[in-house]
């Protein structure tokens, strides 16, 4: 969903260092096993406080990419389709949909009796308005490209919406489930929504103090099962270590960490920590349009000279899993299905020789400092491993703003990156690796084979057939090594005793606050 994590930057490195220092000092009084969410029937009521490192940077669901913003907005707005806890597409504001046999017409049947927070009724006019605005370039909606296949949007009656497509698009239903596709009321302007969210979600806005906190309260008119919690407060505590302290003192009942060191310090006493594998992936992006990297043999030499497990172990304490390109559970790539399943320096030397570069190559690599905790360590480990194969990584460590600038411009030979994943592999990679993809410039690689395969994937709705196609795509990617996929990591959801019913998700979503209760 969000490619660039840009939330937890301030003091992330400091926090990590301190956490390490404190590990020694903190006596772990008792460690409870995660059994908290057992037995007792959930009862309504309670005010949950979630510790977050920063305030949402926008309340406009169509422009939100920052984690904090997405997490708040997810609970305020509704989408036509939704993801369940396993990331399968399930009905949302649309109760069902029909796809014509040629795949070119999708008819959505809308849920009846749904109201927005302001009390107005939700109907097909709101869907047409929302989708049309998202498609309009002047709106600058981040999910605009996901509607590229949509030729027209029509509302034959108040409870039906018909999308006519230019070409079949099997990824459309999953694309509609993200918060950037939120349905807003046709009577609201973007200017009002920037201050006053008006959605159909399980919670409604209660109050906000900028830079301090945002409080949501239960939407009593929510169309689904009502939330148990009376209120959810997202309390801004900029320093992760301070969030840990706030949990220990009982002021905060839920927090999500991505740094294993910090997560370890919180796992004491009555706090339960749940590890959730993430769709986002750590990767060494090679730019196949630049210098020596235009030669596939050079790229393969790099892929073969890297022991991915070693990167994971040294940079991230082994907290994660080695991965191939596709990370979503339903389509997961086999990480050993590649030219070098394990590190193979002899093969790397062969590839370099084939490229006529037996003397070695030098690759300029950009690395972000402070964007996420493991970046620099990953880069240094990659550098030392590649040095054994006469490949020199020339590291350029950049402040996160500078890194993003260079990345966005595609101005790099190679980049150490943590990219966001999506449940649907088409949504995840067609934007990077098809010749018309809007991130193709950044990916630096496309091929006629991949264009064809992605088009096939979109035209096929049968799950088994799709899986076969994306396995081919995954293999194409590994065989041509435009990027070297390294590993996926976890998020760590810490919950205080008495909090139950929360389900962490692989896309980092907090949508299950609606099933969370407190005793």
């Amino acid at each position, binding site marked *: 969903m*969000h*490619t*660039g*994590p*840009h939330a937890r930057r*301030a*003091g992330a490195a*400091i926090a990590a260092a*301190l956490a390490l220092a*404190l590990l020694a*000092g*903190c006596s772990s009084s008792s460690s409870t096993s995660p059994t908290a969410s057992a037995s007792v029937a959930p009862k309504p009521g309670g005010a949950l406080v979630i510790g977050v490192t*920063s*305030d949402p*940077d926008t*309340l406009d669901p169509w*422009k939100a*990419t920052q984690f904090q913003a997405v997490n708040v907005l997810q609970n305020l707005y509704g989408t036509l389709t939704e993801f369940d806890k396993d990331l399968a597409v399930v009905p949302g504001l649309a109760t069902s949909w029909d796809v014509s046999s040629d795949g070119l017409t999708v008819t959505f049947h809308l849920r009846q009796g749904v109201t927005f927070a302001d009390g107005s009724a939700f109907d097909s006019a709101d869907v047409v308005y929302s989708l049309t605005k998202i498609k309009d*370039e*002047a*709106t*600058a909606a*981040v999910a*605009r*490209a996901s509607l590229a296949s949509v030729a027209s949007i029509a509302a034959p009656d108040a409870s039906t919406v018909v999308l006519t497509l230019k070409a079949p698009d099997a990824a459309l239903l999953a694309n509609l489930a993200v918060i950037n596709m939120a349905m807003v009321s046709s009577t609201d302007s973007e200017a009002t929504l920037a201050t006053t969210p008006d959605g159909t979600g399980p919670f409604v806005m209660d109050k906000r*103090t*900028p*830079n*301090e*906190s945002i409080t949501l309260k239960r939407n009593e008119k929510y169309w689904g099962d009502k939330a148990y919690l009376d209120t959810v*407060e997202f*309390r801004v*505590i*900029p*320093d992760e*270590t*301070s969030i*840990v*302290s706030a949990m*220990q*003192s*009982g*002021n*905060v009942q839920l927090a999500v960490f991505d740094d294993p060191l910090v997560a370890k*310090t919180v796992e*004491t006493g009555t706090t339960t920590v749940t590890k959730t594998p993430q769709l986002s992936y750590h990767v060494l992006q090679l730019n196949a349009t630049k210098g020596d990297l235009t030669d596939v043999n050079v790229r393969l030499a790099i892929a073969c000279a890297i022991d991915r497990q070693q990167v994971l172990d040294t940079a991230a304490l082994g907290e994660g899993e080695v991965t191939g390109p596709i990370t979503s559970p339903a389509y997961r790539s086999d990480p050993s299905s590649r030219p070098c399943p394990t590190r193979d320096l002899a093969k790397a030397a062969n590839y370099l020789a084939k490229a006529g570069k037996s003397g070695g190559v030098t690759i300029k690599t950009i690395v972000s400092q402070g964007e996420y905790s493991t970046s620099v360590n990953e880069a240094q480990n990659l550098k030392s491993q590649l040095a054994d194969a006469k490949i020199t990584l020339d590291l350029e460590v950049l402040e996160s*703003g*500078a890194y*993003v*600038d*260079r*990345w*966005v*411009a*595609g101005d790099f030979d190679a980049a150490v*990156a943590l*990219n966001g994943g999506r449940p649907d592999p088409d949504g995840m990679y067609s934007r990077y690796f098809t010749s018309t993809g*809007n*991130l193709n410039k*950044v990916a630096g690689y496309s091929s006629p084979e991949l264009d064809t395969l992605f088009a096939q994937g979109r035209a096929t709705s049968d799950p088994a057939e799709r899986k076969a196609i994306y396995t081919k795509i995954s293999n194409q990617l590994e065989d041509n090594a435009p990027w070297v996929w390294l590993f996926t990591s976890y998020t760590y959801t810490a919950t205080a005793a008495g909090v139950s019913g929360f389900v962490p998700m692989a896309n980092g979503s907090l949508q299950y606050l609606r099933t969370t209760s407190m005793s």
Partner: protein
Amino acid sequence: MLRDLIRRPLVHRLVAALGTLLGVAVFVFVMLRAIPGDQITAGLGTEAAALTPAQRAALESYYGIDRPLPVQFFSWLGNLVTGNLGFSSRAQTSVLDLTAQSLPVTLELAVLSIVLALVIGIPLGMLSASRPNSPRDLVGQAIGLAGLSIPAFLLATTLLSVLAASFGWNPNGQGYARLTDGPLLNLQQMLLPSLVLGFGIAAPIMRTTRTAVLDVRSQDFVRTARAKGVPPRRLQVRHVLGNALVPILTMTGLQFGYLLGGAVVVEQIFSLPGIGRQVLLGIQQKEYAVVQSTVLIIALAFVVVNLLTDLLYRVIDPRVRAA
């Protein structure tokens, strides 16, 4: 005529202060734009790469960064004159409102820290000076050195973590309470951060006090006073400390000015929504108006503190008054 006016000390100082502020304004404006990235990439991160040119143009116009730089500068400056400090699209509120919330937090923290620093620093400095190079001097100096060398973030995190983990005491884990709506909780939330800052500032104050006291004590009038039979305590406080106050005041004013710039790290760790954090967030989000206006306010505060320090000299030192 004009020259005479400028020569008058107060007018001269005001003109100099205005010049300083204008310099700061230009400097911050230029520096901010020299940093890579803009509000679009700061908001969208790497997702900004997926924007079409038309989408980018729409956003640039929304954030007002499509206008030429001189236009941006002078419209900002013009707005400042009318009291419009700009708008934060992230917080969806004016910079004036943001500052009205954050400045009191920093001001309170600064005052409390300085009071604590003086309470710790001056007695310690006098104790050290009372018998130079003795064990008590050594202890005083060691404490001073600790204050100087222990980084605030380390002390802050350690205090917070130990108190929260061992005693479950963490007022800063609750939402920030303003002095007006929860004075008791507010003071609790201010206690640790002002201790941390105060301890750090106590060190230079202690050292200044020690040096100044030693310097004054060696002067003739002290010997005369002692010969006249002034009791030791009165001698120490009225004569020695009284005359050593000028350098101590200078140091205090300087430190206070720095504190008004916001103790970013301490504000972050203790979740205090002060002015330092406002600037930091502004820089991270590339909210130019927020950073420019807030930095200017901080600079203004610094100038005012300096002016007040100068006025205080006149109060405590008759020699300055005479000059």
